[in-house]
């Protein structure tokens, strides 16, 4: 009985109702369940990520890891991909001559793709756009 009074107080104070808490928890847990049940989809995602990144840098696939992690507000995909070296630049990549050469880094961290509708974890990795050599096109790495 007292528990229900507490629930009423919580509602009056504007804290989320237990049903809305339940809905949000379910949304995340079902997303997580579906991901766990779709190893082929995850594998396809991994392949696509490696393919994209490999156009810019040479990666160590054998020691790479793509996983999903529960964060407070959603589920994030984490990609931990060791970079071995840069690839030779190709003109049609549309990389601006002015952009500073990348330092060699050992690991490209936290390419986050959010399972949430609103993006809390940074930009999605941009699709590579082919541009004419005259146009500048940013290839800023996703954060």
């Amino acid at each position, binding site marked *: 009985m007292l528990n229900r009074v507490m629930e009423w107080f919580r509602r009056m104070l504007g804290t989320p*109702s237990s*049903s809305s808490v*339940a809905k949000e928890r*379910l*949304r995340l*847990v*079902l997303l997580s*369940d579906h991901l766990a049940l779709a190893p082929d989809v995850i594998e396809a995602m991994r392949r696509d990520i490696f393919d994209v990144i490999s156009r810019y840098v040479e990666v160590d696939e054998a020691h790479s890891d793509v996983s999903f992690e529960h964060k407070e507000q959603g589920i994030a995909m984490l990609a931990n991909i060791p970079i071995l070296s840069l690839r030779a630049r190709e003109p049609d990549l549309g990389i601006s001559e002015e952009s500073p050469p990348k330092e060699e880094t050992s690991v490209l961290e936290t390419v986050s793709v959010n399972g949430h509708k609103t993006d809390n974890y940074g930009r999605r990795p941009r699709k590579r756009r082919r541009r004419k050599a005259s146009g500048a096109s940013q290839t800023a790495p996703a954060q």
Partner: protein
Amino acid sequence: MTARRIVVTSGKGGVGKTTTTANLGAALALRGKRVVLVDADIGLRNLDLVLGVEKRIVFDLVEVVEGRCQLRQALVRDKRFGESLAILPAAQTREKTAVTELQFADVVNNLAAMCDYVLIDSPAGIEHGFRNAIAGAAEAIVVCTPEVSAIRDADRVIGKLQERGLPMRLIVNRVRPEMVRTGEMMSVEDVCDILSAELLGIVPDDPEVIDTTNRGVPLVLDPAQRLGAIYTKIARRLEGEIIPFTQLGTGGFFGRLFEALRAG
């Protein structure tokens, strides 16, 4: 003339599959359809109990499959419904692996040749018993309560049904409008949203239902039971009639008035 073969399933145990199968079957039978109910819960049978025919079982599903009796011999007719309602009981002392999916599908197909509806009461879970139950079906009814565990399991089951290409519709069971109103329970809309499912029926929570299942009396036969009308509506929707759902728990004076009507 082939019957519609519908499996009633849920994933989660205890959400009302057997009660739904029994009462929906009874409602269809009262409308003049010939209905056979199949208990797929080998080892833990309960459909017979809920219908009150447990003392009249002679043969069961496993004995049919093993050829120790004819299918017709195993059917227990519920005399309250004339020739319209019969049940094929499960075996109580065997395991679900006693029957293969092919054998189960075979039995269901044979039944479908002699009635209008075959309703299959699935066991809980997603293992062998569940796979048997859906093997014979062409459509599914998923029963779910507005609680997190039930919804999670229903989601899993819906995934399995989709893998098999079985169309499904949802019955949300044990809704407590007063708790939905206060935000203590998820609403029917919430459940349908989360599961992306088409709604077939809404059944409010009623503790007196336990008494009717204890006594083996289908709700449609007990005029004191308001829920009987709800199962009749569900039966009519199943038949293709468009019957609007009453908004439960809309709140306020009119909300309470609508709830008093308790339509499903």
